[in-house]
């Protein structure tokens, strides 16, 4: 008997007991639907996290000043100035794992255009900052090292600031923005970068040369950096090596004895990302276990019903054998029935799962990601379940003695 015919015969047999076939396949439907829905939501969340961490800069370190200590009370991170401009130059020039390093000084300030004003974060830095953050310029140009050296009153603005001061999609390049009533010429608009994983708006920023920042906006200290240094690393394992090198260099330059604590801090945002990924991996493993268990239960249900079906249809099997069905025809027929049950259960499960994921995503504003490979694996697995659990009942059917089968009541 041809494959197509076997499939048709199997589908007709299942169609004769629609409710029972549906209930039998339900175990697989629920298992597959749960997995598809959870993977779609989980992958959506994961993709979102990865996207935001990529926007921070994946191979970036942040070096902060140390914490002050007065009368036993510890100050917060960065409260004790310890990083010097010479430290920065040393980091830039002496370390093999460091690609670029840039100072970042911050101050909150009111900024004004001709028509509007806005309170934003003013950051004094160098052009290397954009390389460290992998942050391109959308309109105009970056300010240059010459601007930094000359203490020029130029600025690059983030998208949020553009929206607030000049309106959406405006091009403010060449216009004047007043920071603390000091006019800065806008030379460039930064590309949109979005939010940090913790909801901070990266685009709500005005970048100015660090020298200008110190002279005009926030004086700070002469020799120390009253802010932080952002460092980008190079090469494989760059972050870890750069962190080690920067730490060694700074301890050396600050002449810290072996048992002294660091008088600075190094933060590695990619560690947060990898912790997040670790969490996702655990979740994925858990999902796989749930999937395996539910498919196992679904498979046992299929096997149970197939065994019942073989017994019920003993006479039919006898008739088929009497009119010329070979053992393998009978075996194939029952195997294909089990397969059809489980695969259609799997397909319905995929559709249901995607429906649930879509509903959850729209109802709670979660992201979802449909992965074709997961869908294929889910359907493939349900097929395997059908073959695995359908094999024994099919074998049992094919081994029936036609004489006994024909007399079966």
């Amino acid at each position, binding site marked *: *008997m*041809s494959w197509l*015919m076997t499939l048709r*015969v199997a589908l*007709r047999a299942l169609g*004769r007991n629609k409710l029972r076939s549906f209930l039998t396949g339900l175990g697989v439907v629920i298992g597959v639907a749960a997995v598809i829905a959870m993977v779609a939501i989980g992958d959506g969340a994961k993709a979102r996290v990865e996207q935001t961490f990529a926007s921070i800069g994946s191979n970036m370190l942040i070096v902060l000043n140390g914490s002050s200590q007065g009368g036993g009370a510890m100050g917060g991170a960065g409260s004790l100035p310890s990083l010097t401009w010479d430290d920065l130059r040393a980091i830039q020039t002496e370390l093999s794992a460091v690609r670029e390093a840039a100072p970042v000084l911050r101050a909150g300030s009111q900024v004004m255009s001709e028509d509007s004003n806005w309170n934003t974060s003013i950051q004094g830095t160098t052009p290397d900052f954009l390389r460290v953050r992998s942050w391109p310029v959308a309109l105009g140009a970056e300010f240059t090292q010459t601007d930094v050296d000359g203490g020029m009153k130029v600025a690059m603005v983030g998208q949020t600031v553009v929206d607030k001061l000049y309106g959406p999609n405006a091009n403010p390049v060449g216009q004047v923005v007043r920071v603390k009533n000091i006019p800065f010429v806008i030379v460039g608009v930064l590309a949109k970068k979005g939010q940090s994983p913790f909801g901070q708006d990266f685009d709500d920023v005005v970048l100015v040369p660090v020298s200008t920042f110190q002279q005009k906006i926030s004086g700070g200290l002469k020799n120390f950096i009253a802010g932080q240094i952002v460092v980008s690393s190079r090469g494989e394992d760059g972050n870890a090596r750069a962190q080690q090198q920067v730490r060694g260099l700074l301890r050396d330059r600050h002449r810290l004895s072996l048992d002294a604590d660091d008088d600075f801090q190094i933060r590695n945002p990619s560690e947060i990302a990898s912790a997040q990924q670790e969490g996702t991996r655990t979740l994925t493993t858990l999902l796989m276990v749930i999937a395996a268990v539910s498919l196992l239960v679904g498979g046992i249900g299929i096997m149970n019903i197939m065994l019942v079906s073989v017994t019920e249809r003993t*006479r*039919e099997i*006898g*008739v*088929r*054998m*009497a*009119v*010329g*069905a*070979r*053992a*393998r*025809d009978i075996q194939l027929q029952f195997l294909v029935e089990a397969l059809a049950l489980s695969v259609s259960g799997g397909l319905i499960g995929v559709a249901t799962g995607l429906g649930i994921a879509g509903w959850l995503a729209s109802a709670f504003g979660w992201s979802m990601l449909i992965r074709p490979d997961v869908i294929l694996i889910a359907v493939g697995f349900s097929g395997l379940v059908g073959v695995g659990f359908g094999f024994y009942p099919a074998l049992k059917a094919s081994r029936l003695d*036609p*004489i006994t089968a*024909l007399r079966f009541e």
Partner: protein
Amino acid sequence: MAEPLVRLEAVTKIYRMGDVELRALAGVSLDLQPGDFTAIMGASGSGKSTMMNLLGCLDRPTAGRYLLGGQDISSLSNDELARLRNQTLGFVFQNFNLLSRTSALENVELPLLYSNVPAAERRARARESLERVGLGDRLDHHPNQMSGGQQQRVAIARALVNRPRILLADEPTGNLDSRTSEDVMALFQALGQTGITVIIVTHEPDIAAYAARVITMRDGLVRSDVRQAPRAATAQAGQEGHP
């Protein structure tokens, strides 16, 4: 005389149930010619059903030889036996054994599914076979929509659809009233005249009277083997009431 279609040579069949040996056939020798209309009679336990199963290639003899068309079936594999049942033999059972919730046409198509006949030809042959038994107007009826006589004729159509050389009928009239029985016997006689070898197992002398040869069995042995002038059955097909 022509080469016999069926030849049994000292066939025995022994069933073992634990320590008990049941000698269902105790050395039967028999020749059947093409076109013979034979009735096998006997009380229950006489071995006639075992004989039927052997002749129908559903079972193999314990000892002795069964030659079907000159071929020794004890040397054949299960798949080859299935092929013989499909191509050379047709079965009719006492309880019809039709597939329920399946139309007459599809029931008749069943043997053709297992011989890879293309769909269009399958349909045509099944229709032709149903017309031959007088059910050309019942193609789409399901077994539960038909009378016993109609169901049995569907079963006969199914047995005939692959153009077998031998038709085996096990108590084919056991579940039918006497008038319907005569219809069915008339059909068998007509088939016999087209050269099909018809073998009927029955315990009713009335039914055996329609056969040209009556073999009576007792205790696994042939007790008598009589050729007779068959009583002619009159077909009354079509007069049967609708269910």
